């Protein structure tokens, strides 16, 4: 009886059909391994009150260049995270960065970057670039620009009671999930935002409003967890930034 894997059996052609499904799996994976070079242009924008058009000082903006991918297409990481705070003229500025090489799964799409804008008492804004078919399809271009560069961001005062505001800010907590979920140490890059949310929590506490989930409280409760993930000490971080 011939060995089933006897490749030297005369008169028989080798058949590699079984490699096709393997290639179909390996090929996309291998494509994902091709490194891409990204960079970003500086972003300058101005934050004003929607009703009065007056500049708003102290608005915290987190810019995140979001990598999308995975079998369930979603956010798989951040290529870059920057943070800025508006000055008296309401101006925010992010330096350009790059070039930066990206390996592995995930690609920049239209959240290149996403801008999360927070100022206590106002509605949170999440600003992204236009979701063009090209961007959604992951069309590659090296230099990324923000549609909000040179624009005015109009912030709307939150109209509702404090409990509604707690609920509204739950959305920001979701958006900031990248900073701490899955043992991420990205919270180290957004001290201003964490400080602003800490201040917001103190305001709620003073008013006797409960239920606001802020990232500083989470970090404070998980010192050992984040140390085990290779992050710096959350408690030391909070001591340094939450003055």
């Amino acid at each position, binding site marked *: 009886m011939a060995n089933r894997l006897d490749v030297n059996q005369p008169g028989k052609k080798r058949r590699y059909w079984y490699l096709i*499904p393997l290639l*179909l*799996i390996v090929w*996309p*994976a291998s*494509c*994902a391994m*091709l490194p*891409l070079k990204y960079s970003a242009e500086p972003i300058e924008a101005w934050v004003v009150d929607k009703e009065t058009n007056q500049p708003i000082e102290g608005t915290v903006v987190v810019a995140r260049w979001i990598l*999308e*991918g*995975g*079998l*369930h*297409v*979603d*956010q*798989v990481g951040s290529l870059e995270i920057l943070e800025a705070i508006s000055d008296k003229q309401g101006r925010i500025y992010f330096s350009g960065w790059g070039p930066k090489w990206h390996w592995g*799964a*995930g*690609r920049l799409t239209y959240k290149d970057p996403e801008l999360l804008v927070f100022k206590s008492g106002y509605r*949170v804004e*999440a600003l*992204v670039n*236009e*979701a*063009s*078919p090209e961007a*959604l*399809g*992951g*069309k*590659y271009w090296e230099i990324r620009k923000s549609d909000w560069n040179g624009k005015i961001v109009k912030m709307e005062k939150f109209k509702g009671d404090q409990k509604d505001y707690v*609920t*509204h800010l*739950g*959305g920001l*907590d*979701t*958006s900031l*999930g990248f900073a*701490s*979920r*899955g*043992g991420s140490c990205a919270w180290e890059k957004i001290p201003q935002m964490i400080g602003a949310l800490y201040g917001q929590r103190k305001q709620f506490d003073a008013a*006797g409003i*409960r*239920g606001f*989930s802020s990232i500083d*409280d*989470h970090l404070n*409760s*998980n010192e050992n*967890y*984040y140390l085990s993930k290779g992050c710096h000490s959350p408690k030391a971080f909070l001591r340094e930034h939450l003055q």
Partner: protein
Amino acid sequence: MKNIKNLSASTLVLLLLGQVAFAYEVQTHETLSEAALNGSVLKTDSSVLARLGLEPLDRQQKFPGSDGQQEIVNLFKIGANLEDTSIRAINHFYDPITDNGVAFTSPTWTLEDKGSIPRQNYSFRDTRDYFYKALTQPSKTDREQYFGLTFEALGHVIHHVQDMAQPQHTRLDNHLNLGWTQQELPIENRSRYEEYSNDVRSNLPITGYSPVKFSRLRDFWKTGTGAGMGEFSNRNFVTDGTNFTLRNGQAVAGTRYALPAPNGTSEEKALVDILAEKGQPLPSTLQTRCAARSACLLTFYASTVRDVYTQSTSVNPRASTLSIFDQDLKMYGRTIVYLDPDSLNFDSANTYTIDRLFVLNRFNFDEAHKFLIPRAVAYSTGLINYFFRGKMDWVADSANSAMHAIKNLGEERMNGTFEIYYDAVDGKRYLIKSWLLDINPGMEVGGLNFERSANPAPKNPGEYMLVFNGDMGEEKKDSDLRGAVVAKFIEQKTGMLISVCRPGCSGTTFDIYRSDDLSATCAICQHDQRWQSTQSWKTDTYKRQRGTERDEYQPGWRAELAPTGYANDI
């Protein structure tokens, strides 16, 4: 084994043919789950968590989860997020008409009611098991771990009824989202509905539909009469791949699903006008072509939306769009051969040359959101409420003052084991006694009592946990299934109860505090200094209905002995 083979085969087919679609993006799921939790009895009825011996939801107590110590709300959000992890998502489909899915159907995967599924550790069935362990494990650390698992697994579970509110999941309209490569592969076709929903997640219409109530778990997906979430989205909404079609120039339902169908009304609007409704300008690429209103028209086709649960009908004025634009409002003016998207044979009778397409764009999605999002939240809330629906109490036996009774305060018969535990000074929870009882709704079984354990000594004398495990309604216990689980934290203290009326209180809006001090006089009622030290006072959150929730005495508070008979409510 058969299931495993089916799963493997399905996975291979999915990968090779590009038949994968996924639900709302994970941040959208987190948003919906948080809203669902806030509308559930865990938030609106503080007695529910109190029955488990836990603090009210807004006290933000933390439990171990997949991502460190987390508040309950975050555990729900993380669970809802993680349900989309890796290959799990292929089990998120369910066509209620054919009872088909892609791999396991969503209800079968979620409920795990047709047998155990390998690598499924976050089903409703698993959640029941975690819940029982959270109440009965000896070690406090373990109990907290299982509470964390309970809340996180419930997040996984409600993810599925949210998916049922995404019509592509109930009409098996699949899209491939791989994201493996830097450039989208030709076979990939992302769901614009999901992308858009995520982009507007902070403004989704999450309110407006009361939590649903069912007595059977699968009813949340399909009732057979059309009241399930899956049935609602399947019969009332078209999708990109199961859209209306043109037959002899007339708009009709697609061939795969008879419903929804155009209801005969349509509205033509200029793109520039409809963008203006949303405060958006024309895209720069269309400025020249569409500046004239007549040049770029979209025709919205309406359909009738029937809600079997509320027995109501309404009109979706923008069920679908016939226009020269594609779903991104970018491509236009292209004359194409238009095949009936549902046609399996490429019969020329179903082929048209046309320069307008039935597509779904952001305007259709906005209208669909008004129907689907409030229901996604309401059905999720209903499922949370279902999980915690059981109620019971340990009361004085009316026939024998020396004995006690267990009263079934729920709406379903409880038939199973009732166990009573206490926490000892050594940090462990001990079983004191158990009874096999069958109690009808509203009824009680008396003649019960147990010895107060002295060894090891109780940590908090007079505090016990009563746990039921067995058959309740549709949930049955057998050798392989946990069955229903209900708990009641009970206190048998004889201390003094006082009511605290804060400025502005009236009627029953006072808080109740309890003291272990058996003093016959209400010293606290005189606003004495003991208010300054509240360590010995325990807030009875069960009756807390208003207040600043600070436990320290505040000037202006009025305290007095609790009304006669009030203690019996506790």
